[in-house]
């Protein structure tokens, strides 16, 4: 039974991490290239532009939920299972989500990279 708890906890963590990352990426794409903006309009303009992007706040909220559900999941399962499983599944989930929601061109090169990084993280933290 604790198994079910642990894995559903991990899935919740992965879900909210992916949602948070995708929303944050979308927000920053809407803001535009920060280097150019800094040069043309200065720091305060960039900060107000970020703060006036709704996806930014939704992304932060999703990341906060992911963080606290990670704490819960850690109290249900072993660190050596929960942390690497959540981290590496997040990489794979992000590759799917970036393709579907951000229309990034996730070609074979990036799929291989996502799988390699996910496997590497699982090995390192396990």
């Amino acid at each position, binding site marked *: 039974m604790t198994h079910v708890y642990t894995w559903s906890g991990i899935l919740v963590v992965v879900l909210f991490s992916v949602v948070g990352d995708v929303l944050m990426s979308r927000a*920053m794409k*809407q*803001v*535009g290239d*920060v*280097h150019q903006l800094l040069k043309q309009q200065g720091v305060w303009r960039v900060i107000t532009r970020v703060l006036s992007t709704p996806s930014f706040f939704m992304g932060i909220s999703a990341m906060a939920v992911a963080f606290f559900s990670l704490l819960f999941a850690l109290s249900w399962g072993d660190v050596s299972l929960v942390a690497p499983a959540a981290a590496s599944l997040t990489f794979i989930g*992000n590759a799917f989500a970036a393709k579907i929601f951000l*229309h990034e061109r996730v070609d074979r090169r990036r799929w291989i990279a996502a799988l390699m990084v996910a496997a*590497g993280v699982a*090995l390192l933290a396990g």
Partner: protein
Amino acid sequence: MPGIQLRKGLASTGTWYRELRTDLQVTFRKYLVLAGVTVFAAAGDTMLSHGMKQTGSISIHHLQSLLFALLNPWVSIGILLLLAFFAAYMNALSWADLTYVLPATSLGYVLLALVARFALHEQISILRWLGITLIAGGVGFVAGGEALTSHPSHQRGDASFAPDGDVPAVMGAER
């Protein structure tokens, strides 16, 4: 008028050189941001965990002990570093794909393992070395491609791209 021709040629070489130099500067600054993502995340996590081990465990019933944890210099420096990580991460996401930036965050794990091996002289198992190799290889795979492939149609204030979402994905060509 060979003189004018020559001067024209020199002038165009000058602009070409200046453009190349700004291109290189931009590229260098972007790699610096990616390095910041990696280093700040790894250093921040390490300091935070070091500090939290000093302050001891925190229970839900004594949340005020969280405030005391903030007084620990390791914890506060760790938080500052993680804020710096977040700034660099957002900066990187403003000009690169999510699937391009994320592998850079994972390089932090590699960095930590290498610090543990060579600065703290900890033993690293073969499985972990395999993990390090996989992550480094994955990052190399992504870094060899374009930084930005997503459609620019939802980007505001950038008229230089065709508005119909069907632009070929060559905008990452600045790398």
